[in-house]
């Protein structure tokens, strides 16, 4: 068997999100429609046009030793927590460290630590800037700490592609195992950059919802009343493993990572191609790579950020990619509950897509009261939807500013 034909499977899952501090709480929230979006406390947010976000359900510092958390940016804290959960969920396999890799993506990394240290610099002088500033702010910091935690020596990577970063991590991990560089790879995505400057920056693009009077209702993909996305923080982690390695140790297997379809729009630095050609192609490539057809697809975890243009551009792309079979596909927009986790989104939504396949249950799209006529998809809302049994494929879409399109295909096994 050539390494390019190696099947890669998922043997562990981890997450900490605005909906729950671990996978089971998050999943339970996603299938019951619970929002993690709430108002932002603090005078520093009072004058901003957007004063709410998807904030972690469980404070990471409550789960870490002080000596550990004080030298980690928040995005690194949650990347570690999520990967530790995933590793334990996978049964903490013992293997040669040189066969273990890590890919943890982020959109911006430790920007909040950079901002805090800049504050120290200006108020207390350079000699009080933390010697851990560089490790905290460097975007590869999360991947590096996860790698150190696990003793991973096959390679540690941090893909960056804005809101597609987390999905690219899964794709990179898939490639790493298929190419024979590793037998097990911990893949994840993390983001924790809620700060007045980041909110102001997205707000300046008019990209954010301004529904300050009802934060939990603000993220409403596909709804006629949607007015922009909601920033969120969170991390997801998946243990990817070659199938033979997983079976040899009797691991519990959630699903196969069948394929990643990746394209670029070539359209605009921040807006998606309204015709969704790049997104359509990504989904088609994912299906081809998986040896699957649209008829095999039972669920799509859509990117669906709740922007007026983005939701319908993607919906058109999904319809183009799946054709008539789109009628049998239950589409869920889980950002309706988590908010947009940016670099963490692709990873957390991969966890959700895999669990949807594993449990044959598609999560709710919360806040969907008045479906936009232009969507033309079967969007799960009101309550979670039972999915059919048998061999099946689910897709997870992630699209990033800059025109990065990633469609991941997970298959039952």
């Amino acid at each position, binding site marked *: 068997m050539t390494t390019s034909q190696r099947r890669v499977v998922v043997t562990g899952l981890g997450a900490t999100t605005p909906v729950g501090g671990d996978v089971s709480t998050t999943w339970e929230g996603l299938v019951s429609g619970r929002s993690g979006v709430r108002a932002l406390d603090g005078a520093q947010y009072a004058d901003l046009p957007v004063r709410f976000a998807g904030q972690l359900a469980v404070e990471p510092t409550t789960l870490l*030793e*002080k*000596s*550990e958390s*004080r030298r980690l940016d928040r995005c690194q804290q949650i990347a570690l927590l999520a990967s530790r959960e995933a590793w334990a969920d996978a049964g903490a396999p013992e293997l040669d460290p040189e066969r273990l890799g890590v890919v943890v993506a982020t959109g911006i990394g430790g920007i909040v630590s950079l901002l805090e240290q800049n504050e120290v610099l200006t108020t207390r002088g350079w*000699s*009080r800037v*933390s*010697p*851990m500033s560089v*490790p905290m702010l460097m975007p590869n910091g999360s991947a590096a700490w996860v790698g150190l935690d696990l003793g991973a020596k096959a390679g540690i990577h941090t893909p960056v592609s804005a809101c597609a970063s987390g999905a690219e991590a899964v794709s990179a991990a898939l490639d790493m195992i298929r190419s024979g560089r590793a037998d097990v790879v911990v893949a994840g995505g993390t983001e924790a950059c809620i700060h007045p400057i980041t909110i102001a920056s997205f707000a300046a693009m008019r990209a954010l919802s301004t529904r300050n009077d009802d934060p939990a209702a603000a993220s409403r993909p596909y709804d006629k009343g949607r007015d922009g996305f909601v920033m969120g923080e969170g991390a997801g982690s998946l243990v990817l493993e070659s199938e033979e390695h997983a079976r040899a140790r009797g691991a519990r297997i959630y699903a196969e990572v069948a394929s990643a379809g990746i394209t670029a729009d070539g359209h605009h630095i921040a807006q998606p191609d309204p015709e969704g050609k790049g997104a359509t192609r990504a989904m088609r490539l994912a299906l081809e790579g998986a040896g699957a057809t649209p008829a095999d697809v039972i669920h799509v975890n859509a990117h669906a950020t709740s922007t007026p243009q983005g939701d319908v551009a993607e919906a058109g792309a999904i319809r183009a990619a799946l054709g008539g079979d789109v009628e049998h596909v239950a589409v869920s927009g889980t950002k309706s509950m988590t908010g947009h986790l940016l670099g963490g989104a692709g990873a957390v939504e991969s966890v959700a897509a895999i669990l949807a396949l594993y449990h044959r249950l598609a999560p709710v799209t919360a806040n969907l009261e008045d479906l936009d006529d232009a969507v033309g998809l079967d969007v799960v809302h009101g309550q979670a939807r039972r999915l059919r049994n048998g061999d099946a494929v689910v897709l997870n879409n992630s699209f990033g500013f800059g025109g990065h399109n990633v469609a991941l295909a997970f298959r039952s096994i």
Partner: protein
Amino acid sequence: MSNTEILDGLAAIVNEVAGTPIADITPDKAFIDDLDVDSLSMVEVVMACEDKFGVSIPDGEVKNLKTVGDAVAYIEKAQA
């Protein structure tokens, strides 16, 4: 400050920075070899000591502070 007060204060700092149990932080212990305080943590310990004890500990001095006892002695002398 008394020797004991300085030791207690330093122990609290090392505990916070490196997670070392307070009971393990005794004058004979070497920061790097015994207490697992790496070079970056040492910078943090020194910064915190400067703030807490109101002293200055230049980089050139830090390399001479091999043990907890060395640091306590330095701080006591600097406060005098």
